[in-house]
Structures are given as C-alpha cells and as structure tokens.
C-alpha cells in the first residue's frame, strides 16, 4: 500500500469507528455512555480551543470557560421563551463563535504585556467576572435570569427535526443522544481540521515561535500583538461554539456550569493529553470525561470484588481516584500522555 491508500484506509477506519460508536457503546453499556460520549465531544471542542491559546501560543489561560459561558448564554437568550426569541441553531452558533471571539480579544488586549502566572490570575479573574455577571444580571433589568438559569431552551434542530427527539430510519429507532453525538462529532472533526490547518499555517508557526521565545519571534518580524490576539480570538470562538451546543443539548443553562473548576478541567485535558499536540488533546478530553464516569460505575463493584464489601462510598472514591490519576499521569509522562515529537525531543535532551 502506498501512502495515499494508507491515509484513505485510515480515514475510512476512523469514520467507521466513529459512526458505529454510539450503537456499540449504547448497546453494550446503555445510553448513559452515549451521553458521556456527547459530553466528551463537547469537551474535545473546548480543549482544542484552549489548546490554541495554551498549547500553540503558550499563554496560560485559567478563565477559558468564560467563552463557553458566552456561547451558551447567547444560545439560551436567542432560542428560549426567556425573551420569546427562537432563532435557529445554524444562525446562533456562528454568531456565538463571533461574539465569543470578540470577548477573547477583549480579554487579550489589556493582558498582552502579562506573562506566565500573572496572565493566569488575570484570566482567572476574567472568567469569574463573566460568571458573576451571568449570576447577577437579573436585576435591575432581567437579562440572564440570574442564578435560576434559563430553562426550556430550544433543542438544536436540523431540517425541522429537533435532535432531542428520537427518529426512526428504516425501522431503526435512533434516540436523541445519538443524534447529538453525530452532530457533535462532525463539528469536532471540523474543528480538528481547522486546528490542523492552523498549526501548519504561518500563523501556527508564529504562535509556536512566541511560545518558544517571544523576543526572538518579535525580532523575526512577527507582529506578536496581533498574533497573540488572534490566538485568544480563535480559542475563544471554539469555546463559543461548544457553549452554544451545550445550551441546545442541555436545554438549560445556569451560571454554576461555568465555574473555575470547569476551566481547570479543560486545562487538565490539554496538559494531560499533550499540550500543542492535537491527537493528544483529543485523547485528554476523551479520558477526563470518561474516567470520572468509569470510576462512578466501577468503584462500587470493584470494591465488592476486592474486599467483599463496599468500604468507601463510591462517590468519595471517584474524585479521589481522579486526583490520583492526575498526579500519576504527570509524574510518569510529564509532557502529557501523547506529546508531539518536538516536545518529546526536548524532554529527552533535558534528561540526558
């Protein structure tokens, strides 16, 4: 087989696996796991967005979830009885990307001079500010409905068919979670494609140059200000899309979904998977969504099998195991589970 056939075969194989995944998973473990896969796809989109900022451009962002929140709230406001607006999803999602991107620039512009941990705390503050506003903007004028959140959001529909409802094709009943799965996976693939193209573009190389050495990058004629702002905007727009999808999928948004821990989780996905390496980030997103659920299901029975009884509440153990997993992975693979070749080289050099 030559390279091209191989590539085609690989693509076909991945497509086939992705296409049958919900049926295999849903059939074997139940629809809960398909829902987990839905969330995994959402988080992969988020993680890929953050990867642009943290992985490519090397800017530590701890408030990334704010853009997710912006996208989610935009969808909620434009497609729910709250304002009586019912825009279609195909109109809101691109708008969400743009608005979130704008917020990205808004955050990026004043923080261009900051670096490292100072940038981290400012982005963290920015994330909290957005969340607090979402929580408080129900008075004096009710915009976000405050802590009560916005309910009865329209489900995402395609060709008049809301994805929340099961459809029947040739006698095969396909539940809503499967339909969302396909939508999210298609969009995630689109974002993977954009990420790959970006990475290989002039801009992508400029980001890496800034990450490695900002002064040298400047000296080489890179307009660091614009390139950095672009990183914030691109990353944010991915977050905005994911947020819109989340709102349509969940049909409910409230500020508590956008806390600091969410930002931290997405950052963990990026770093754990392998910063700046797209397959690694995808792996990170998938693992960190699936693992806590696996612990939820497995902790009780595993104890039963090992000790004959349940010693610790599965729910206490779940987060404990999760924390231990974070530490263990970083100790054994400090550059992430699946780092890119450049990173691996650097690590090898440092060790020698």
């Amino acid at each position, binding site marked *: 087989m030559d390279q091209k056939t191989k590539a085609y075969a690989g693509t076909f194989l991945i497509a086939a696996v992705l296409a049958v995944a919900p049926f295999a998973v849903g059939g074997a473990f*139940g629809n809960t796991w398909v829902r987990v896969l839905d*969330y995994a796809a959402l988080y992969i989109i988020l993680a890929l967005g953050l990867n642009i900022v943290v992985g490519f451009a090397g800017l530590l962002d701890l408030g990334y979830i704010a853009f997710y929140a912006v996208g989610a709230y935009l969808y909620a406001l434009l497609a729910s009885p709250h304002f009586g607006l019912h825009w279609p999803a195909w109109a809101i999602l691109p708008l969400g990307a743009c608005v979130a991107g704008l917020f990205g620039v808004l955050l990026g512009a004043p923080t261009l001079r900051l670096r490292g941990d100072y940038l981290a705390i400012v982005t963290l503050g920015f994330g909290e500010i957005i969340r607090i506003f979402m929580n*408080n903007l129900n008075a004096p004028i009710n915009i976000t409905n405050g*802590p009560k*959140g916005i*309910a009865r959001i329209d489900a995402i529909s395609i060709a008049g068919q809301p994805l929340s409802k099961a459809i029947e094709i040739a006698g095969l009943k396909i539940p809503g979670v499967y339909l969302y799965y396909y939508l999210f996976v298609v969009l995630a693939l689109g974002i993977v494609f954009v990420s790959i193209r970006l990475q290989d573009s002039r801009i992508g190389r400029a980001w890496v140059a800034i990450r490695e050495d900002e002064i040298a990058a400047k000296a080489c004629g890179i307009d660091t200000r614009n390139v950095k702002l672009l990183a914030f905007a691109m990353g944010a727009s991915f977050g905005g899309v994911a947020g819109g999808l989340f709102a349509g999928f*969940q049909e409910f948004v409230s500020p508590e979904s956008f806390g600091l821990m969410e930002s931290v989780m997405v950052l963990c996905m990026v770093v754990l998977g392998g910063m700046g390496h797209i397959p690694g980030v995808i792996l990170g997103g998938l693992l960190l969504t699936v693992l806590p659920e696996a612990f*939820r299901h497995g902790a009780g029975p595993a104890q039963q099998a090992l000790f004959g009884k349940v010693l610790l509440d599965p*729910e*206490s153990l779940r987060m404990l195991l999760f924390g231990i997993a974070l530490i263990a992975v970083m100790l054994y693979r400090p550059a992430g589970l699946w780092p890119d070749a450049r990173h691996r080289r650097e690590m090898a050099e440092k060790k020698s």
Partner: protein
Amino acid sequence: MNVPAKALSLSVLAALAVMACGKEAPPPPAPAASAPPAAQPPLVVKIGHSAPLTGPQAHIGKDNENGARLALEDANAAKIKIDGRDVTFELVPEDDQADPKQGNLVAQKFVDAKVNAVVGHLNSGTTIPASKLYADAGIPQVSPSATNPQYTNQGFKTAFRVMANDEQQGKVLGEYAVNNLKAKTVAVIDDKTAYGEGVAHEFLKSAVAAGAKVVAEEHTDDKAVDFKAILTKIKGKKPDLIFYGGMDPQAAPMAKQMKQLGIKAKYLLADGGCTAEFIKNAGDAAEGHYCSLPGIPYEKMPGGPKFIERYKAKFNADIQLYGPYAYDAAMVVIEAVKRAQSADPAKILAELPKTDFQGVTTRILFDEKGDLKDGAITLYVAKGGKWEPLDTIGGATAPAAEAKPAEAMGGMTGMQGMAGMAGINGMTGMTGIAAEATKLAPEKK
C-alpha cells in the same frame, strides 16, 4: 388564645380553598385484579435518588439519601405485595455534585437503568434540567427539596415535590416578619443561588406588601464566610429584622458576626438555615433568632420522634436538613406503587396526583402542578440551644374534605390538633391566619 375561633378561621380558609379550586377528584382507577400467580421471585422496584454527595453540599446530600434509604427499608419491612407477588424496593443512589451537567448524566443513567421512579434531585439547579429527561421518559420524579417554582411550572406531568416552594414559604415569612415579629424596617440578604435569591425575593415582596420598609438589600455567595462588610453596611441602616435567604454554613457565621458587630436586629432564616447545624455552629449567637421549615414540626408528627430515633440509630448521624422530606418523597412513591398495584412508571404516575399521605413532615397532597397543596409552614425560635416550634401557618386539608368524607374527619382532627398546638405555644395572631385565608383564596386557580 381562643382555640375554637382559630379552628373556625382555619375552616374558613379551607372552605375558600375548596371554592377556589373546584375542579378536582379525577376518576378513581380501576384496580388491577388478576389472580395471584404462585411463588414468583420478588418484583424489584428501583427508585433512583440523586443529590450532591461530594462538594460543599455533600452533608445535605447524604442526609437526603439516608432519608430515602430509610423509607425503602420501611417499605421492604412492610412486605408489600403486588398481585400476591413480593416486592423489593431498591435504592439506586447517585452523586450529581449539584452540577446540572452531572445531574443530566445521572438522569440519563436512571432512564437507562429503567428505574421506576426518582426521588430527587436536591438542588433546583439540577432538578430542573433533569426533569426534562424524566418527563420525556415518563418516569415520575418527586423532589424532596427543590423549591424553585420553575420546576413545576414547566408543565411536566412527571414533576412533583413534597416541600413548599420558594413563593409559598417566602410569602408566609414576609407576613410573619411584619405581623408577628413587628418588624417595620427589614434588611434582606441572599446568597445569589436559585434557592436563596428566590426565597429572599418572595420574602421581600410579601414584607413590603404587609407594610414593611426595606432599608437594605445585600448579597453574598454560597461559599463565603466573611459577611462583616455587608453587615456593617446594614448596621448603619438600623433595621428591625434581617432576613437571610441561604443555607446554614453561611447563616451561622453570619449570626456570629452580627453579634460581634453589636447588631441587635432580629434574624430570620428560611428552611436552609433551619437546622441543628446552625445552632451548633453559631453557638450562643443563635439565641432568639427565627427560622421556618415547611411542614409541621416532625417531633410532633405521629411517628416523628421514632423517625428521628431510627435515623440516628441507623446512620449514626443527626438529621441535617431535608432527610425527613426525602423520606416522605420516597414514601409518596411507595404508596403510589401500592395503590397502583404496579411498578409501571405510567401507572405510578397516574396514582401520584391522588396522593394523600400523612408523612413525617406534613400531610401531603398535590395540586394540579405537582406542588404541595397549601403546605403548612412552621416557624421556630432558637431557645436554649434548640429550635423551639413557635407557630404553624396554613396546612393542607380542605379539598380532601369534599372528595372523601371519611378523610375529612381525620383532616379536621388533625387541624384541631394543630390549632391547639399553636395555641399552647402562644401567639399566631388570629388576624394573621384570617388574612392568610383571604389572601390565599383569590390566588388559587
């Protein structure tokens, strides 16, 4: 205090309520009467329970789970039979971390596992989005503690709750603050959560309607421990009463800090602060403050003291907050299973609206939305390191009186008992109750 007069005023309230909600009494179900098949394996009825078991509210979540667990044990001990077949109730406990996303995952898990009914969730923020999934799957959901009105306003046939919602409670509290605690000026603090803000908002509305002046409206959050800044500001406005809409982890340090700042105002809490934890954590700063809980003091309910005793013995812990409500919620489901003679969610669902159950917290009847009908609300005062019941306002009874005459007697005696109790404990302005009656009536639809 004139007991008969009070009973009279209560029946006025009852009569008004009957008039107001005339359409009632759905047709009785045709009881399934098939021949009992011989010796079958027990029928397993799975009841999902979801609450945060990790995170800052974990203690309250575990309390709910314990309550539901106790109810299921009782049901299993009672050896309920459906068509002659033994029934085993099985609890499926889950952790939703008070996070809407996790809540939906848990809900999906329940739907997949084909649970027959769900008790939960604890927080309004998880209950509301999850209710959509249950409604789509036709699984009955009874929340012990989600008090946001939005939950039952969505028009889902599957959504019920066994606790007065924020509107019902906030309204009673506002009137009580003005009429009984004689507050002319009030300050309102909330924790900016769906629950805290909701109940504070309703309190404020009803206090203003009753003639009080709001001198300060402050906010904190559900993770804060330092309230001195907002309390200092409030101190400058000299209110008669400070209302806090939020949970006890904040309410207790707040009481302490009020004392440290020399604030003499009365302090009124809703159910979130009406816990033994509040008194324990606020120490002597709790003395003389007020709180309310939906329902009738369970110490005074038939089976109440025994419930507390058993809870302690079984879990080696004190009741935190909503445990008894979770017990009632689970019992309501179990009773519905019994009446339906089926574990089929659709049949349970058909029975739930007809619920008339004497729980450990109150007598439970549902209105057409699935809310607790005319839920009683009891006010407590902190005295000698304990919450002492002070007054019980409102209470369900009336519609049952029309529908089932036999029940009415029970209802009346219950009411009289209640009125007598309030009489013993003092106060409750007659006027307060009468006003309650006239105000309640036009609102009922």
